[in-house]
């Protein structure tokens, strides 16, 4: 493995995370199609409650993938985006619809919102699936809008992967929601999602098998990669994990199902990477598309630092959500805890005077220095007094009528 390939691995991890996490959130509204009346309402509420706290964080994975791509493989990014602008714009529209759905359902259950959300559960996975398909089928030549506006993403492979993405999202959502409904003690709902999960799983498996056949016709290079060597191993792991998921669903072991479903997705994405390598776009290899080493190292350093902060934060969030702490009507901790009360007093004169002096010095320094430490010291003084002064002013304003 060379340095140039490391960021591809990061991108694949990002894609897998996005598919598993955001996929569940796109697939969820799909199920509001399958029930009416009370059950429909129950499904909508459960979906909203399960997903609303995490959707924003889930979406950042997409941004992460884009950013790694344009930093390390700028030409690949530019070629894909200029040729495939229609599906990419569609995907964006779907993301917006979904977000509006979360915003509105946060204050009120409105049926029209679910129409939008359901449309997005078809549009976004399909559109992003066709983009993957276009890359798999080698339909995106390097260059500024060099590929065909329509056939680049409306070819058999693209359509196939688009459909696979829709069913996969619906499946992931059902698996996740079945577990979530049981955790919150809604047995009937959990059963409903379990049935839906089993059906969706079977359909997804079937689409996957058909998909391999389509690849054979349409995307020979990737087909060969997936049916031999390491690619084949990945496909087999994915199939095994898929079967395990179905078995755990059937046995109502939802926690196992959740993780094995994620493993199945991750394995197939790894397989794609292995099969597609070494070319990212026709004639453009990973090596030749990659930015120079110091760019890659810079990115890896920042990703490493970022992960140090991100991983504990994500664990905290998912821990709180899966631990049921954000469930509506959950127990409240410490709400009655007494805190020492104090009256607000206007700040002391000495502190006000000191602040004014620092501010005056800061303003003068900022105004007279053209550059260098004097200027930066001045700006720092201005900002500190600004916020300190703001707090003091607020204190004295609200304390006058206490």
């Amino acid at each position, binding site marked *: 493995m060379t340095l140039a390939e490391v960021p591809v691995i990061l991108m694949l991890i990002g894609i897998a995370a996005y598919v598993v996490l955001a996929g569940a959130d796109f697939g969820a509204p799909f199920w509001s199609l399958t029930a009416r009346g009370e059950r429909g309402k129950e499904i909508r509420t459960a979906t909203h409650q399960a997903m609303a706290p*995490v959707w*924003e*964080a889930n979406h*950042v994975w997409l941004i*992460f993938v*884009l*950013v790694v791509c*344009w*930093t390390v493989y*700028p*030409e690949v*990014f*530019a070629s*894909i*985006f200029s*040729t495939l*602008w229609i599906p*990419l*714009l569609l995907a*964006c529209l779907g993301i*917006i619809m979904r*977000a509006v759905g979360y*915003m509105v359902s*946060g204050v009120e259950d409105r049926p029209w919102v679910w129409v939008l959300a359901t449309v997005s559960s078809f549009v976004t996975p399909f559109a992003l699936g066709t983009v993957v398909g276009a890359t798999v089928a080698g339909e995106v030549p390097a*260059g*500024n*809008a060099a590929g065909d*506006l329509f056939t680049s993403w409306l070819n058999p492979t693209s359509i196939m992967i688009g459909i696979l993405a829709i069913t996969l999202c619906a499946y992931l959502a059902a698996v996740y929601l079945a577990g979530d409904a049981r955790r919150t003690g809604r047995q009937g709902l959990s059963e409903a999602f379990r049935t839906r999960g089993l059906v969706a799983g079977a359909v997804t498996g079937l689409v996957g098998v058909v998909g391999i056949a389509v690849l054979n016709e349409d995307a020979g290079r990737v087909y060969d990669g997936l049916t031999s060597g390491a690619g084949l191993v990945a496909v087999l792991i994915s199939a095994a994990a898929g079967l395990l998921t179905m078995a755990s669903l059937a046995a109502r072991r939802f926690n196992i199902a959740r993780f094995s479903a994620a493993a199945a997705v991750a394995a197939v994405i790894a397989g794609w990477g292995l099969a597609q390598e070494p070319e990212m776009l026709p004639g453009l290899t990973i090596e030749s598309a990659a*930015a120079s080493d*110091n*760019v890659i190292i*810079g*990115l890896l350093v*920042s990703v490493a*630092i*970022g992960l140090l*902060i*991100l991983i504990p*934060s*994500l664990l905290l969030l998912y821990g709180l959500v899966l631990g049921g702490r*954000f469930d509506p009507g959950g127990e*409240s901790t*410490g*709400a009655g*805890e007494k*805190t*020492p*009360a104090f*009256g*607000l007093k206007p700040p002391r004169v000495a502190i006000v005077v000191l602040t004014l002096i620092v501010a005056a010095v800061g303003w003068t320094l*900022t105004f*007279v220095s*053209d550059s260098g430490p004097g200027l930066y010291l001045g700006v720092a003084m*201005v900002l500190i007094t*600004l916020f300190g002064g*703001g707090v003091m*002013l607020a204190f004295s*304003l609200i304390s*006058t*009528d206490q």
Partner: protein
Amino acid sequence: MLELLAAASSSFPPVDQDYLLEARQMQALSFAVHIPLVCFGVAFPALVIFMEWLGLRTGKAHYTAIARRWSKVMITLFAAGVVSGTLLSFELGLLWPGFMASFGDVFGLAFGLEGFSFFIEAIFITIYVYGWDRMSPKRHLLSGIPAMAAGITGSLLVISVNAWMNSPSGFDVNAAGEVVNVRPWEALFGNGHLWPQMTHMYLAAYIVVGFGIAGVYAVGWLRGRRGTYFRTAMVVPLALACLAAPTQILIGDWSARAVAEDQPIKLATFEGLYKTTEGAPETIFGWYTEDNTIEYGIEIPKMLSMLAYHDPNATVQGLETVPEDDWPAINVVRIAFQTMVGIGTGLAALAAWFLFVWFRRKRLPRSKWFFRAVILAGPAAVVALIAGWVTTEVGRQPWVVYQVMRTEEAVTGADGIVFGYGVLAAVYVALIIATWWVLRRVARAPFPPEIAALERTPDDGPPSGDEREAEE
């Protein structure tokens, strides 16, 4: 390595794009939606946390009630910011692939770090908003702090990209016109333009949010909602905005000096200065005409040299020094710049009124006109914000990377930009309506009983003599 780069950029020659202007407008439209929204991501967490902290320290319910309600507004605006930002990252590729293909690696690092910032902000805003009553009050308060910090780093990193576009560094261009020897850390933090831009934007966010929120309560104030809850909710953001507004003039002056140093032609455009002049005058208002003069302007002798270099006799470079092809749209930039400065001065004057009355009389101004002005100040600050970005971005034209790459070399070669533009405009309208509707809902939600009881006895009494006086 060099040959590889040659191969890489040779597939992105400039293309014919009949709709460059539409592409630019689409970009502008998206920023005009995103940037006001993210001001709330930058400045709002600090205000909400401050309120919660007051509530914890004093044990008084209305502070906590304000923090709770604001946190709902915060997460709604955050969601709108997330989608408009996602669209923006798509647009970089959809509209400007030439720019991304040549320079993605130079400034990409900033967005890489930015991505983590977004993660942190999304995670902790969620924990904060869903965490009310679910964690100990102290932990809850602490969970807001990373969100606040991420708002700052997020804007810092994205501004570093913009500052780099204004004053590019961290790479070399070889004889064949390729970008080589990329030094990403230098590109990110190695340019002096970043700090004034960052500080100016950061204050702008506080001004927009401070006046925006205060304005909402000022409407209620004029309708007689003046209880403790409403008064507190108005006065705290107002206090911050009224300190930030005068400071913004100082920092704006710093920005202008940075422009004078790095982008003399942009400065000449602000002022419509054709000839290189010693002791250049400042011209207010007016219209730049074909024969390179300003009609109907008011001239203040030597003022421009004074402002840009703090020296009344300094020489200011004029537009004549570069070919007309390299000029931005002069009147657009001038009008935008003067709008920003005009509004900025107005806001500072409003702040001075407020501070003066406060220090002399220890109370809020009583004139209705003060509160009317506060209501107006929120939207005016948004106008100034967008005008400022128009100044910066249009003023940089025709360059996307100043004096390195032209915008027409950056644009996509794809067909159908106009169609995409139409769709996007419609979507933005829908997004704004939906956000507005949700905010109205949040605002109408009933108060908790103890607050409602508090508000039934407004403590400000009937309008006093002072007020009638001021109205006359």
